[in-house]
């Protein structure tokens, strides 16, 4: 049995060109995002304006109104896709989402508190910083409640409790809002949007998202080892407790920064990894980059769609992702249920 025989090279490689292909789609959507809006611009106009040429109003539209929006869609969509893939790898469950440990809810609560207290002006730094601080606070609370070496079940239950607490806090903030306008502002902010964002928002979110990306991508090979279960991964040399801490911190940082500038945008983190998982042979390590690109594409597309869909009032992009995301989530649960039924019948 031990003599060498030819073994077919059978490592399932990710589809060739998957990452460049997704990057190409992203660039295309990015340019479309600069072109589409109340003022329709041609492809050439967009490129001219980006280069600082062409009509003055085109320059303002492309570089000051639409470019920050498109950049944020790429950064936030990418972060959500990456966070979802990392969470699913950590929890070894395709239904996991970045919101599971309560970070986005805590970020939203902190942001809403700032709005309710009337501390925030249109371009102020207080709201985004509060949101990031809220996300971090949720991590410390999570670790304080569940313990540093907590089991996943304890972490998830603690995350659920923290989400509920943040939700209650958000409701209280709206309840106690000093005037109806503040309550309305909070409600709209919670819906999640990329409208009317400036380069300041981009500069605020991107450093946090960059650090979070490093935290989540660095341990990628450990996600594959985790497929064997936590004990086997540990025996292979993976520090599972540290990996959990890295992922929770990375997600809180990245998603906190995203919520800080765009409000809550749900389901991208769940949907994006799913769309690309079959294309990387279900390998949780190779999933990260394509999931991030898919997330960026989804959010760019959603943010284009809200401009194109005819409606009496603006549809917020967070509402659109939820409306599309929830049925997709239900579909995933049904798929999971039937595949389990087939396995264990």
């Amino acid at each position, binding site marked *: *049995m*031990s*003599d*060498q*025989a*030819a*073994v*077919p090279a*059978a*490592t*399932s*490689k*990710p589809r060739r060109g998957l990452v460049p292909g997704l990057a190409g789609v992203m660039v295309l959507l990015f340019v479309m995002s600069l072109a589409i809006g109340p003022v329709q611009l041609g492809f050439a106009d967009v490129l001219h304006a980006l280069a600082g040429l062409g009509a003055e109003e085109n320059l303002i539209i492309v570089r000051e109104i639409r470019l920050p929006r498109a950049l944020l869609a790429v950064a936030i969509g990418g972060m959500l896709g990456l966070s979802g893939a990392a969470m699913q790898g950590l929890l*070894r*469950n395709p239904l996991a989402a970045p919101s599971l440990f309560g970070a986005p809810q805590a970020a939203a609560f902190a942001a809403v508190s700032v709005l309710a207290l009337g501390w925030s002006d249109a371009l102020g730094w207080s709201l985004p910083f509060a949101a990031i601080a809220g996300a971090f606070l949720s991590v410390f609370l999570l670790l304080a409640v569940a313990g540093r070496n907590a089991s996943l079940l304890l972490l998830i239950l603690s995350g659920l409790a923290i989400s509920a607490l943040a939700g209650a806090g958000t409701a209280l903030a709206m309840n106690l809002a000093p005037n109806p306008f503040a309550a309305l502002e909070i409600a709209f902010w919670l819906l999640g949007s990329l409208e009317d964002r400036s380069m300041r928002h981009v500069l605020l979110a991107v450093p946090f998202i960059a650090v979070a990306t490093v935290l989540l991508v660095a341990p*990628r*090979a450990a996600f*594959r*080892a*985790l*497929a*064997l*279960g936590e*004990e*086997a991964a*540990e*025996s*292979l*040399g*993976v*520090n599972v407790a540290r990996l959990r801490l890295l992922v929770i911190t990375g997600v809180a940082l990245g998603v906190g920064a995203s919520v800080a500038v765009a409000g809550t945008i749900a389901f991208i983190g769940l949907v994006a990894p799913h769309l690309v998982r079959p294309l990387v*042979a*279900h*390998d*949780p*390590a190779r999933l990260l980059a394509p999931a991030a690109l898919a997330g960026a594409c989804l959010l760019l597309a959603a943010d284009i769609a809200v401009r194109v869909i005819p409606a009496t009032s603006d549809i917020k992009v967070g509402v659109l992702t939820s409306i599309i995301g929830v049925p997709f989530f239900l579909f995933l649960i049904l798929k999971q249920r039937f595949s389990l039924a087939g396995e264990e019948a």
Partner: protein
Amino acid sequence: MTSALSLANVMVARGARDIVLDATATFSSGRLVALLGPNGAGKSTLIRAIAGLIPARGEIDIGGIPLATLDRKHRARTIAYLPQGHHIHWPLSVRDVVALGRYPHGVNDPARMSAENERIVDEALTRMDIAALAGRTVTTLSGGERARAMLARVLATKAPVLLADEPTASLDPRHQIAVMQELKAESRRGTLVIAVTHDLTLASRLADEIVLMDKGSIVAHGTAAEVLTDESFAAVYGVKVLRKRVGEETLIAPWGLA
């Protein structure tokens, strides 16, 4: 010569309960050791403590070096551990799963392995007779095929100590024999193999040494003839056994309650 593994007064507590009370034993390289004992005797806990997965008191030395002083990667290269159940969470390809055995040696991407690592993975696949299944996803395999894939994964680590927790559980008779024979073959390559099992006949036929645990302690350690006596079966398992000589070997079957 330093022993491959030595245990001195090893104790393991889980919560308030002591699971392993006192384990003292020394093992040499190139031996197949069967770890026997009733359910709850502390076999799996002892194995996991030796693998460094749970904290233990007392001394565990691997090749003369205290386990606690080995860094994570070094430990992973020295001790390969096959957990119970052979569960896998994502439908990875068989070859990617086996390549995880090279993770402690720095293989982070099975699609980009050195020629040497490729050769080791291929060899493990061939030895477990699953080279033809290399491209299949593990979730499409039968129980026996999956058990062999998991065993190939630990063989690929090429660790001097291999710990297997019930590697034959839930396998059909053919695969039980095949897996135990492969563990025996691995021991003949110089590896210390310790396998938890409930299969008395396979243990007595194939193992070089038998360790019998009961209520958290090692109660006997020696050859099958020394350890697997009627008295120990009655005392530890509470059963009477039927014995039959078959050539040089002995068939042992539990035959009734003691």
